[in-house]
């Protein structure tokens, strides 16, 4: 038995815990030793990998560490962040949402059409994108929770169908000639950060709190950990499943409009393949595809890892195809390290 203790879970007031559970919980004494350091290294393996990668890029490139480049990384990460948050919820329930890339495209196209029709009221475009995402996510949620089609299949169908819709809506061509008011959405600056970056930060903080501190978060973990046990504990399993797909859809819709605004183009191929990067971020962040295990912080870390790598390799002018090879190897390595360290964990 080792003596490092995991940090107390959210909401566990230490006073109440030690008083109430005195007979239950002998609190471990923390001893500083080589063993302790080893456990720490195992627990934070991903953080260490991340730091090593950052150190490598800092050493190889003077440009990498500049504030401008940091901003570039954050801006590139933003559209992925929103869908990775939704994806985390879905994966925590033991499902998967393959459709988010296509939902980005449909939302981008419909958002652009709305922006063109109402150039004076571009926030309507944002709402449109989110509603489109909500519809797609709700269909996913319905098919998974009520008809009980496996999530992989249900969202694979939506991936294809939504992509088709994106082309249908724009008659196969991108929506161009968008008003300047629309492109200004993604460039709105708050505290020196653009709106998508703000949304990313607020989203990560918000969902981190929701997943740790609310009854809803606990239901999502419980449904993914053991749906039968969750049902017996009175959790409405179907409703919870429906909600995570709906949330994932809304976030993909929002991401789609932001992306269209940033590139000032309602292209039906926006977001293509993004679902894979989002899933990769969640998995690198330590979530189990079987559900019940994972965290928003892990996803945020996985996301930054991928984006930092993309950025650093670009700066070092590594050819794009090699970048994919390196990214692929990283995904497998990250999960292998996680599997290995979970086994070693006390």
């Amino acid at each position, binding site marked *: 038995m080792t003596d490092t203790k995991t940090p107390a879970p959210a909401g566990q007031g230490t006073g*109440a815990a030690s008083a109430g559970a005195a007979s239950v*919980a*002998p609190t471990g004494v923390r001893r500083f030793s080589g063993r302790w350091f080893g456990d720490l290294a195992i627990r934070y393996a991903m953080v260490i990998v991340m730091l090593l990668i950052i150190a490598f890029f800092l050493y190889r490139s003077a440009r990498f560490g500049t504030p401008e480049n940091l901003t570039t990384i954050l801006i590139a990460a933003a559209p992925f962040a929103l869908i990775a948050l939704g994806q985390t919820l879905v994966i925590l329930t033991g499902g998967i949402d393959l459709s988010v890339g296509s939902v980005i495209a449909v939302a981008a196209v419909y958002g652009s059409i709305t922006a063109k029709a109402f150039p004076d009221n571009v926030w309507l475009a944002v709402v449109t994108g989110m509603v489109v995402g909500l519809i797609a996510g709700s269909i996913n949620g319905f098919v998974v929770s009520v008809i009980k089609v496996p999530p992989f299949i249900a969202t694979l169908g939506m991936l294809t169908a939504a992509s088709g819709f994106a082309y249908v809506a724009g008659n196969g061509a991108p929506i161009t000639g968008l008003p300047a008011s629309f492109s200004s959405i993604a460039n709105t600056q708050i505290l020196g950060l653009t709106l998508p970056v703000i949304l990313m930060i607020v989203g990560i903080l918000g969902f981190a709190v929701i997943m740790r501190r609310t009854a809803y978060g606990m239901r999502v973990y*419980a449904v993914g*950990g*053991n749906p039968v046990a*969750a049902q*017996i504990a*009175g959790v409405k399993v179907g409703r919870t499943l429906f909600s995570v797909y709906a949330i994932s859809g809304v976030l993909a819709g929002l991401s789609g409009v932001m992306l269209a605004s940033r590139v000032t183009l309602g292209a039906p191929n926006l977001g293509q393949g993004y679902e894979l990067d989002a899933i990769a971020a969640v998995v690198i962040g330590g979530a189990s595809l079987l559900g*019940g295990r994972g965290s928003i912080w892990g996803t945020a870390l996985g996301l930054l890892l991928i984006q930092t790598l993309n950025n650093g390799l670009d700066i070092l002018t590594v050819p794009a195809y090699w970048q994919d090879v390196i990214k692929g190897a990283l995904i497998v390595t990250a999960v292998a390290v996680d599997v290995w360290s979970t086994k070693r964990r006390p």
Partner: protein
Amino acid sequence: MSVVDQLPGGIPNRGEVNTDAPIMLECVDLKKSFGGVPVLKGVSLKLEQGTITALSGENGAGKSTMMKIASGQYRPDEGRVLVRGEELPAGNPNAAHALGVAIVPQELASVLDTTVYENIFLGRERRRFGFLDRRRMIREATELLDDFGVDIPATARMGSLPVGLRQIVEIVKATSTGARVLLLDEPTSAIAEREVARLIGIMRRLRDRGVSLLFTTHKMEEIRAIADRVVVLRDGGLVTDAPLSTLTDDDIVTAMIGRELEDLFPERPEVRDETVLTIDELVVAPSGAPVSLTVKRGEIVGLAGLVGAGRTELIESIFGTRPVLSGTITINGERLRPGNPAASIAAGVALVPEDRKGAGAVLSMNILQNGTLPRLGQFSTFGWLKGRSRTAAVAKSMESVRLRSRGLDQEMETLSGGNQQKVVFARWLTADVNVLLLDEPTRGVDVGARSEIYRIITSLAADGMAVIMASSDLPEILSLSHRALVLRGQAVVGELDRDDLDDPGVQDRIFRLASGMTSHTKGATHD
């Protein structure tokens, strides 16, 4: 030469215990402890050629451990195993196999996507010029199956067969590799009645060929049907080893339960004259008869019956995880909305389900989270989880069942079976419970933790809960319940009051009611 001829040659002694028969397997003074807890305390046993021995005893008596030592899976702390006089190298399953000792485990390890013949020849595939000789394997497998009177194609997929047939394929596989001692761990626990008859036929056939069989069971009817000799273990010690013909059912039951019965079970609480639960004409399966039942505060009602009799269905319907076809459930005078677990929980119904790992707890979450889950509403304000009051309440309820853990943040996965079961109980105790539903509350729980769980059950009843407890463990039903219902075919076929339960012949009576072998269903509630 046909494979059938390779089977061990027979000494046809048809069930008579022949004292001159050679000893095939001998266990000498086996001792084994797990984590300081002795599981076997010096057990000796001899298996004669061509006999069937029943290894009997309660859960946790040491039956499975004994078998695992005899088949080389476990290394005994002390003692040795002799196969036809030759000492078995301890803890070496391959050596045991080579000496002709085969085991068919309780949880079968068949590869479900393979065919029957592939499974039989797994690890010793017939080859021709280096390639698999499938035709020969199919032919030989068919011969083997025919020989056992099993009418299944050798090319059938294992996964498509019922568990009972898969088990028989495993037996065919074991004996076709030349096993002369066959150990069967709870062979009838997971299979249907029709398949039990077939299994018994095959066991007899093997005995007639001179194979020595040892099987674990705690069912009297199986012992009566096939055993030549009965060995009873209790608390890791051997209490009976005698030919079946010299033993009465009572002898065996007394040997299995022993004095322990009084020690294990606490006193039943006082029943208060206040009805909590009223079930009126409840129908839960299309084939079922309506069930009516009232349970008072402090009362423990046992549900006995065979697997599939409808005990679990009744409990799940009361809790709301199974739809109700007709009839009503009333708690403290309030009609319960059927088919809605959340409504049942709000009305003060709690369920400790049968399959602890599969249904009782979320193993990937910690004790605090599991303790919070059933009463999320109570532990949150506008969706936000409370901090201290929640931790304090869960800590208090876990303390009330004397849970042993490293702290509330310990993951369920890392708790022992008995402690997991305590969490599954205690998580309901953060608020008032009116009706406590228990489905096999001690299955897979070791003896020590069992008596603690019995104490929890009786003290909760004493606090005023109405308890319904389904159990396959008859001593549990006989000792804890104030009343017991016997179910068969989704209907109540007998109701036994406390005097009935104290009657010495009650075990036999319950068995007859449960299996439908009798007409004297005194007090039957269905018509």
